[in-house]
């Protein structure tokens, strides 16, 4: 496993949110999906900063949508998970599973 394939926690959550949304989604939808599922009220800036980082790594790609009046005439930036992003998610999930499987960690004592 390459070192760069390990995801940070927010990267992991955002990639999972994008994968759950299927197809493409913009920052606001990703933010709301995370808020609804985890109760974490993360900022839209944190979502975009992470998506930008994921795009630099080649895990997601983006394209510009049409500007709409309800957005003050501003265009959406839609993101979708790339094959390498899906692979990184699998590697990350596998890593977590292998670390937690057959463990006798007593959470109450930590």
């Amino acid at each position, binding site marked *: 496993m390459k070192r760069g394939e390990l995801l940070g926690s927010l990267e992991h959550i955002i990639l999972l949110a994008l994968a759950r949304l299927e197809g493409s989604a913009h920052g606001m939808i990703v*933010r709301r999906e995370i808020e609804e599922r985890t109760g974490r009220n993360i900022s839209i800036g944190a979502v*975009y900063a992470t998506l930008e*980082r994921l795009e630099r790594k080649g895990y997601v790609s983006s394209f510009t949508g049409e500007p709409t009046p*309800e957005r*003050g*005439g*501003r265009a959406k*930036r839609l993101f979708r998970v790339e094959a390498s992003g899906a692979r990184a998610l699998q590697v990350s999930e596998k890593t977590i599973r292998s670390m937690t499987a057959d463990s006798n960690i007593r959470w109450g004592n930590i």
Partner: protein
Amino acid sequence: MRRAQPPAFACWFLDSVVPVPYREALLGDLIEEYSLRADSASPIAARWFWSQTCRSVASILWSSLCSGDWVVSMSIAIGVYIGMAMFKLIADLTISKVLAPGQATYLILAPVVFLLTSAVGGCVASRIRRGATLFLALIVMITVAALIGIKVCATPVPWWYQFGFLCLGPLAVLIAPAIVGAVASGDALQPGE
């Protein structure tokens, strides 16, 4: 029905600070979600908008800092500041030697020149790269504070005179590009229209 308008100052702040790759999409997303929230309770929606603005700016600035993007903005800010300092030096010399050799006139003209230089510097930095204005404002503030600290002004002046330089200089750097943009486009402070 007229759509609820998000806080204009928060929009302008985001527009001035957030780097180009995120700016349009991020502000559009915030305005879209605000319009959904504003239907129920506008003060709560405005508070939410401000909270998102402040936290987003912190996240993006931290991310830019980690990725090294700030180096370019900082370099532009330093370049513009050097230009501003040279212009201010020439203007100060011209005022004190040619236009107004008297100390009193100089004390009146010096802040005017300083504010004009800061405003023009802010516009130039913003034109090159929006994120540079924040660094320029910071440089202006630190320089003025240092000059006050080493008591560069030989003439005794009231505290508010120096305090004015300290606050209005960085403010001129930050606000002038927004005013120029609003005047040029006519709608820079009304993002919902």
